[in-house]
């Protein structure tokens, strides 16, 4: 699974940068064509949901998706599946 921010919905409030336990969401630095600074994703393949959603068959963590007031965060199916090498620091 792949973590994506829908640029047509995001309003750039940066609430997602406050909640992710891996700090995947980082404040962005570039205006998009709607005049919004969308957060940038720092190595999104570290997200628990990207790695394990398929295995568990349900959404794990998902706190960014729940708290995003603009329904802009979702996970997309990757086809064909691309395995990532993931380094997780604690």
């Amino acid at each position, binding site marked *: 699974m792949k973590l994506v921010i829908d640029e047509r919905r995001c309003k750039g409030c*940066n609430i997602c940068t406050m909640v992710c336990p891996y700090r995947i969401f980082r404040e962005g630095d570039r205006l998009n064509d709607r005049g919004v600074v969308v957060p940038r994703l720092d190595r999104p393949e570290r997200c628990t949901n990207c790695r394990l959603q398929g295995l568990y068959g349900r959404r794990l963590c998902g706190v960014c998706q729940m708290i995003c*007031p603009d*329904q802009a965060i979702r996970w997309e199916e990757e086809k064909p599946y691309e395995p990532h090498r993931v380094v997780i620091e604690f």
Partner: protein
Amino acid sequence: MSADDWFRTDRLPHIYCTGCGNGTIINCTLEAVDAMGWNKNDTVFISGIGCSSRAPGYIVTDSLHTTHGRALAFATGVKLANPRLHIVVFTGDGDLAAIGGNHFIHACRRNVDMTVVCMNNMIYGMTGGQGSPCTPVGALSTTTPYGMGEPVFDLAELAVTAGANYVARWTSYHVTELTRAIQTGLETPGFSFIEAMVQCPTAYGRRNKLRQVSDMITYLKTHALLMQKKKRMEEEGEPIPPEMFAVGEFTRRSRPALGVPK
């Protein structure tokens, strides 16, 4: 199915300001409604007037966007006319506690079978930031330029006293707990009241030195006092800071309810 299927995606993005917490509460409510496995044809979302009350417009089911303060009156009518319908009410602090205060206490007293989610942003958001019954003491608003001098209406305690079957309060930061509380409310027969404290960076934060969305979230996080901790502090005789609000489950009981299908 997932919570996403309940949104009218053609209407998104919604009109709420950047960082407004109302969107988060819609997410949590739809997540809970989805977990109940309800049919879209048997679920009705009802609201009054205000930013918070625009929520049903973004949901695919039948809905009623009624007059200011009267959401509960309409909801009672819908429930009694057809008790098989599942009723969820979205309302704001001004809508529920100021102009709609009387409907609120009597819906609690009658214990009508419905779930009310109040998005308490501590201000009248839609009309530009007038003080509401839930504006904290000392807070600035357009109608309290020298700071609010009246005490805050504790809506959760009011619902408990007036007779609701299930009452809980969380904030837009506590998404998991809030979703669980809403689901418990949906499962409980009788009147369930869930108060969700939300940030309004535009009308409240801007005037109260909480201009950044992150400041408002931090405010909610640091001013929420867990129910268990509050009880412990009371037992030990420790003073509870007046600016803090309790979060958690206030009551869960089974008084006789109105409108529960036989």
